[in-house]
């Protein structure tokens, strides 16, 4: 439909945008090999000496482990609560139905510092100990809407005739869910869960206000940026994480590839 000139222009634009998106990533990787701790340009001495101490850094390992645990906890809660809310809104009509999606998007739509300060005062008021669970509560609150949006979008595209047919054929509620509904939304759950995990893993503002004595990885990174004496370590760990996450992101993308029902593929 588009002219050849338009296609060429769009291809060039896409290429430039990808360059723009990844220029800082390339810089991060370059500086992982910088011999100096202060980041100046151009890089004069190249070295791989930072890799081993970073990967053996006890504080970094603790922070990474806490981030993984918090991300997992927040994602599980988000999957459960987010899909429950999506089912409720999709299947039932009730007072305040429209307000639900508004309410759920608030933690993402409002500045993180508001969520952080509100939760901090709230936990302090109830004399709750700041620990992994306060972090998980903070993260889950803004992850719920991500799963909710993905699931409800998929539910809207899944014809209800499928569930009705299943019942007609004699399946009860649980069997219908297990054999019909769940497979239909499974890829939405995966993509929603993955995005929720990514947000939780990289979150720093709300976490600063809800973390206890231990640090998550972003807080550890922020601390290192503050003192500025171990900057290459930060670049190394980000580089390693990037390498590690290429695989799950690619796999997830494969799994969630939508076959456009309405498009001629």
């Amino acid at each position, binding site marked *: 439909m588009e002219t050849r000139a338009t296609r060429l222009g769009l291809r060039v634009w*896409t290429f430039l945008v990808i360059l723009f998106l990844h*220029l800082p*990533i390339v810089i*991060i990787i370059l500086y992982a090999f910088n011999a100096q701790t202060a980041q100046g*340009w151009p890089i004069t001495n190249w070295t791989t000496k930072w890799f081993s101490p970073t990967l053996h850094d006890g504080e970094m390992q603790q922070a990474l482990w806490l981030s993984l645990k918090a991300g997992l906890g927040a994602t599980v809660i988000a999957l459960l609560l987010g899909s429950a809310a999506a089912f409720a809104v999709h299947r039932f009509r009730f007072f305040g139905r429209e307000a639900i999606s508004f309410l759920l*998007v608030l933690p993402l739509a409002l500045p993180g510092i508001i969520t952080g300060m509100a939760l901090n005062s709230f936990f302090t008021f109830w004399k709750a100990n700041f620990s992994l669970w306060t972090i998980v509560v903070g993260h889950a609150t803004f992850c719920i809407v991500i799963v909710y949006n993905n699931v409800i979008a998929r539910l809207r595209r899944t014809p209800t005739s499928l569930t009705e047919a299943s019942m007609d054929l004699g399946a009860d509620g649980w069997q219908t869910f297990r054999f019909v509904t769940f497979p239909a939304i499974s890829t939405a759950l995966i993509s929603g869960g993955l995005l929720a995990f990514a947000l939780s893993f990289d979150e720093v503002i709300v976490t600063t206000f809800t973390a206890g004595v231990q640090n998550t990885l972003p807080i550890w990174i922020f601390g290192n940026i503050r003192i500025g004496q171990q900057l290459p370590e930060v670049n190394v760990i980000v580089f390693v*994480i990037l390498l590690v996450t290429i695989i799950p992101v690619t796999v997830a993308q494969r799994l969630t590839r939508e076959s456009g029902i309405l*498009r001629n593929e």
Partner: protein
Amino acid sequence: MGQRLDSGDLLAPRRGGPSFTRARRRLARPLWRLPWLRGIALLLPPMAWFLLLYVAALAVLFVSAFWSVDVFTTKVVHTWSLDNFREIVTSSAWRRVITRTVVIAFLVTLTDAVIAFPFAYYMARIASGRTRALLFVLVLLPLWSSYLVRVYAWKVILAQDGILNWSLQKAGLPAANIGYTNTAMWLVFSYIWLPFMILPVYAALERIPDSYIEASRDLGARSFKTFRTIIVPLALPGVIAGSIFTFSLTLGDYITPTLVGGASSTFIGNVVYNTGLGAAGNLPFAAAFASVPLVVMAIYLILARRSGAFEAL
């Protein structure tokens, strides 16, 4: 079977089967007889979480905006007044901060929409399946590299002796002194939130059925008219959905202004952070100041909902 069939039976649990299944179905019977019970069971956990944890915490924070702090004891006193809000409205410095934050948030949203749209269009409607998959991964991958480190990388690029000026110098061009300015912040924000704009716009563009385009052509419209009357209106909810993220994330950020901003780059988030914490501890004032982005976003969200953007999130 000898039973009279009525509509309830079509959805009723079956009889017979292993005992576990029978027990499960017996327990599930009230859920079928009373569908609203199922609704409540699904709705209660997420709503309880939100209302009891999040909304309650927010409410307490914003109620304290109407209180103040005793100068001598530094404790919050529960005397009701609008003094905090009055100070925000009358001080030229506070108004300057709010204006600057909103304007830059708006510029960032506009920039991201302009950059993302052609990219998402190519990805959704022109690219082959394999290219699309590759682009997807390339767009999502930066989200996994720490936000802090990406912003810090821009410091190196934009500094006086940084990569940008070094490249310009090599090309014989004059140095661009955009390090530690609001221009730098606009650039970095546009960069950081770009994936959040690309994804909803892509989703919206991908959903447009080919049949619409074909019908438009059959009716005689040329490609630009089709673009203007069919594609743009259908893609708009996606753009607005993306703009919710870019606008609100810029509105509340305080880390990027601290890292790449200059002397005139204080944002709303910085003010809330500096006045709300610790030794100064004027939480009522910080809460009052934080209500500004809250009101702005509430208005934005209400307008967005009208346009159907929530379906495109």
